C-alpha cells in the first residue's frame, strides 16, 4: 500500500516537472512576446518582491568623511570604490565563486 502511494506521488512529481518545464520552455521560446509579458507568469508564481533591493548603493561615508581636505586620506577616500559595484544590480556573482580572503 505504502509503495503504491509513493508511486502515485512520484508520478505526480515527474508529471509536474514535465509540465512546469514545458511552460517555462514555451515562455522562453515565444519570439514575439515581450520579455515583460513572458516573465509575468513566472513572477506571479514567484511570491512577493523584496522591496529593499532598489536602494542606492551603500553611501554611509557621506557626511562622515572627516579626512576630506586634511590630507593623508587618498587611499581612504577611495577605499569603498568598486567594492559594491554589483549591489542592486542582481545576478552578478553567478559563477558561484567564493571571494578571496585578504587576511589570514
Amino acid at each position, binding site marked *: 500500500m505504502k509503495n503504491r502511494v*509513493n508511486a502515485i506521488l512520484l508520478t505526480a512529481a515527474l508529471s*509536474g516537472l*514535465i509540465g512546469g518545464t514545458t511552460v517555462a520552455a514555451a515562455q522562453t521560446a515565444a519570439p514575439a512576446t515581450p520579455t515583460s509579458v513572458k516573465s509575468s507568469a*513566472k513572477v506571479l508564481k514567484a*511570491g512577493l518582491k*523584496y522591496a529593499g533591493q532598489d536602494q542606492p548603493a*551603500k553611501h*554611509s561615508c557621506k557626511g562622515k568623511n*572627516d579626512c576630506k581636505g586634511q590630507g593623508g586620506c587618498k587611499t581612504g577616500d577611495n577605499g569603498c570604490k568598486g567594492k559594491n559595484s554589483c549591489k542592486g544590480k542582481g545576478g552578478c556573482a553567478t559563477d558561484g565563486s567564493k571571494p578571496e580572503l585578504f*587576511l589570514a
Partner: protein
Amino acid sequence: MSSHPTSLEAIQREMAAAVMRPLTADEEMQATAPDGRAMSEVAASFIAPNSRLDAFERLEIYNRQYWFRVLGALAEDFPALQAIVGGRAFEALSVAYLTAHPSRSFSLRNLGSRLIEWLVAHPQFAGRRHRLAVDVARIEWAFVEAFDLAEREPLTREQIATLDGDSRLALQAHVQLLALEYAADDLVLKLHKRDKRQTSEAGVKEYEVHAAPAKLPGFRRRPTWVAAHRVDNSVYYRRLAREEFLTLNALRRGLPLGEALSAGFADSRMPEPRRAGFVRDMFSNWAELGWVCAPELESLIKT
C-alpha cells in the same frame, strides 16, 4: 621605546589591527593599544606625520572610516533587524558582532555572513524579542544570498524523462529555504517598504542611530516556511507549505526523489487523496521557476 615593524606584512598586520579596532564612545581612535602602548607611539612606528596631522590623527582617519563604512553596510543589509531592536541597540549589536567577526572579504556583501549564528549565541544584544530578531536576520541574510548566488541550467525535459525514485536532484543555490519560528516574512516586507519610503523621501538615507525600536503588533510563535529566491534579477520570497519545505529541504540534502517525497509527507496532516495533486502543482511551480537542476557530478561521488 618604540618598536618598528620591519616587513611589509608586519606593517600591514599592524595597520589592519589598528584600523579594525573599535572606536571610543566619542567615535575616536582608542588612545591605548591592546598591548598597553600608546596608540600615538604605535602609529608613529609606521606612519609619518604631515604638515597638518600627526601620525595618530592620520591613522585615526582610517580607523574611523573603517567603522563608519562597515556599520553603514551592515545596517543597509539588515534594515528590519535595525528597526526591531532600535538604532542605538543595533549599533551596539553591530560593533560587538564586527569586533567578533571583522570584515575578512574583499566585498562588504559578506559582512553579515555570520550574524545569525552570532545573534543566536548573544541574545543580550537583541532585547526581549530575541527569537523574532533571529528570524528577521535570517530572512534578511537570505535576501543577500538569493540576490547573487549562482544560477545553473534548470532540468531539461530530456533529463526529466530519465528520472525515477532513486534519482537525485539539486536546487538552484539562490533558492534559500527558511524554517521560521514566527511569521516574520510579512513584518520584514512591511519594514523594508517603510525603509524604502523613508529613503525616497529623504533622498539619501542616513544611518539611523537614534531611531527607537519599531512598534510591533503582538506576535505569537507560528511555524512558517519561506523560500527566498531570484527571478529576472529580482529577489522574491514565497511562503511554502510544510510539506513543500520538507520536500525541498530533503532534495537539497541530497536525498533521492522517492525518499524526499516521503520526508516531505512525514507526519503530514494532509488527506492522502489531496497529496498527488499537491505534489504535481508544487513540482510544476518549481520547474517553471527554474528551481530544479541536475546535481553537480562531484556531489554524486561517494567519498
